[in-house]
């Protein structure tokens, strides 16, 4: 099943020659990557984060600056962006993990805005509201990625597949179990020897790192970055994708990202009523499946899987 889906997705650009479709799917892939990263933080570790776009921004600006100032190639920028955003996740997490629940949401919301405002005002470095232009596209040997969406599509597919694999591994691991325990009952988890501060920082660091990869990809594909690409609405949209797919579900995060990217495109025909319909659809979906699209399936699979796999 999984392999079949992958084969279809890899060969899709050959079957469907419409560049617009490939472009939409590439965007869906980018969001899927972000949703996977946020799912680590919110779905696994249970930390409600409302400023996730900040790590996406840090990744994007890291590559943009390295490329423009030092000619850093994309493939080097990718791990560096990941590391920078990951470290930012840990550093911004240090004060944030002292608070819980609603308060954590407010603190992270604040961080998200601080990063956006700093980027907007640090004009000598970030170009301020005008952003940075002329960022190099990736290249492999003599092949240069250009305006054609297809190479980006295959690249993001690879990144999403790799990240999804890592997330599934993590969920099953000792650390994943401790994350879920701390999400379910922090006090009980602490009394079982789970160092909750450390585990929260690991989740924030990894989640931030994934957003950094997504940011680097975004900057390299667009060739430009501007602060308004990283506003609060983006953080909320990614969170909506995670919740719609089913909190804690790796496949759900991908599905949620695909649905929330593709549905608004399908509603293009309704022009100005588009977002109204989209909103109504979300309300209906969450009423029908409060656990998210794959939330229940996720729990069932986990229940079956543990002993069978060992």
């Amino acid at each position, binding site marked *: 099943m999984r392999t079949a889906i992958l084969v279809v997705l890899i060969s899709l650009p050959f079957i469907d020659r419409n560049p617009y479709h490939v472009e939409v799917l590439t965007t869906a892939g980018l969001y899927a990557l972000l949703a996977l990263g946020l799912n680590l933080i919110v779905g696994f570790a249970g930390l409600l984060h409302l400023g996730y776009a900040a790590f996406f921004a840090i990744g994007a600006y890291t590559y943009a600056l390295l490329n423009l100032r030092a000619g850093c190639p994309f493939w080097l920028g990718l791990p560096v962006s990941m590391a920078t955003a990951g470290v930012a996740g840990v550093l911004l997490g240090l004060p944030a993990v002292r608070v819980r629940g609603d308060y954590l949401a407010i603190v992270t919301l604040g961080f998200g805005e601080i990063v956006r405002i700093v980027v907007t005002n640090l004009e000598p470095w970030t170009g301020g509201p005008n952003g940075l232009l002329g960022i190099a596209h990736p290249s492999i040997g003599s092949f240069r990625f250009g305006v054609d969406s297809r190479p980006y599509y295959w690249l993001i597919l690879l990144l999403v597949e790799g990240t999804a694999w*890592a997330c599934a*591994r*993590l969920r*099953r*691991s*000792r*650390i*994943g*179990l*401790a994350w*879920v*325990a701390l999400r*379910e*009952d922090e*006090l*009980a*988890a*602490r*009394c*079982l*020897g*789970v*160092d*909750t501060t450390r585990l929260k920082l*690991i989740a924030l660091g*990894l989640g931030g790192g994934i957003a950094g990869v997504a940011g680097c990809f975004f900057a390299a594909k667009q060739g430009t970055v501007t602060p308004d690409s990283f506003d609060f609405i983006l953080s909320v949209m990614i969170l909506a994708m995670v919740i719609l797919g089913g909190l804690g579900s790796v496949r759900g995060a991908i599905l949620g990202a695909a649905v929330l990217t593709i549905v608004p495109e399908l509603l293009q025909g309704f022009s100005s009523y588009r977002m109204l319909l989209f909103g109504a659809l979300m309300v209906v979906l969450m009423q029908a499946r409060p656990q998210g699209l794959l939330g229940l399936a996720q*729990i069932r699979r*986990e*229940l*079956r899987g*543990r*002993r069978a796999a*060992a």
Partner: protein
Amino acid sequence: MPLLRLERITKRFGGLVALSEVSFSVERGSIVSLIGPNGAGKTTLFNCVTGVIRPEAGSIRFEEEESLMGLTPHQVAELGIARTFQNIRLFANMSVLENVLAGTYVRTKSGLLEALWPWGFAAHQEERWAIDRSMRLLEQLQLAPFADHLATALSYGQQRRLELARALASDPELLLLDEPAAGLTYQERQELMAFLNRLKGQGLTVLLIEHDMRVVMPISDWVVVLDDGATIAQGSPKAVQEDPRVIEAYLGAKPDGVRPHGV
């Protein structure tokens, strides 16, 4: 040398003195019961020992004079102290087996690298070991048939047993049980007592909070009575049972020849 020694523990919440100079010891391999009316400070004392809250004064020493003061709950757990909670705190969206697996956390050590290493042999070995251990505990507590069920699907008595299994999964030296018999049927209570005696036979030390004298009296080696945050009596079950201060604390009046029910 006692396994756990508390000296003059004092804890205040604002103006309220929850614990006032509480001192007692728990001998290795014994079952010690902490009794007292509601609000006497029993759970507060558990929270002090496990690092959940910090007492203002006093000392708590565990094994070889190791001080527990200022340690966080996970550090206390690492030293070999496990606990259950008065109002059962299971991981609701995890399976019965996963709940117990979480208990093995302090006895395993796979980190991020092991989790992400594609040929993760060490992590796999460790996972097997943890699952085997957890399944054995579930069998001992008659929960094995429910291993793949959600923790919330269990009956109340089963949930209490699951919490016990989870605490035991960490292979503790000292087990703190907060009202383990509350809400259990007669049959379940008898099984619990037999199980605790078996644990004691294996060398485990147990400190329990319990209201039910039919549980406390037969299994305890030592009984500590708390009232209003202070130790008003301690000794063998029989000595405590006959102590006039204990009877007064439970009845709220001076004894006049009437023995309270169950004491």
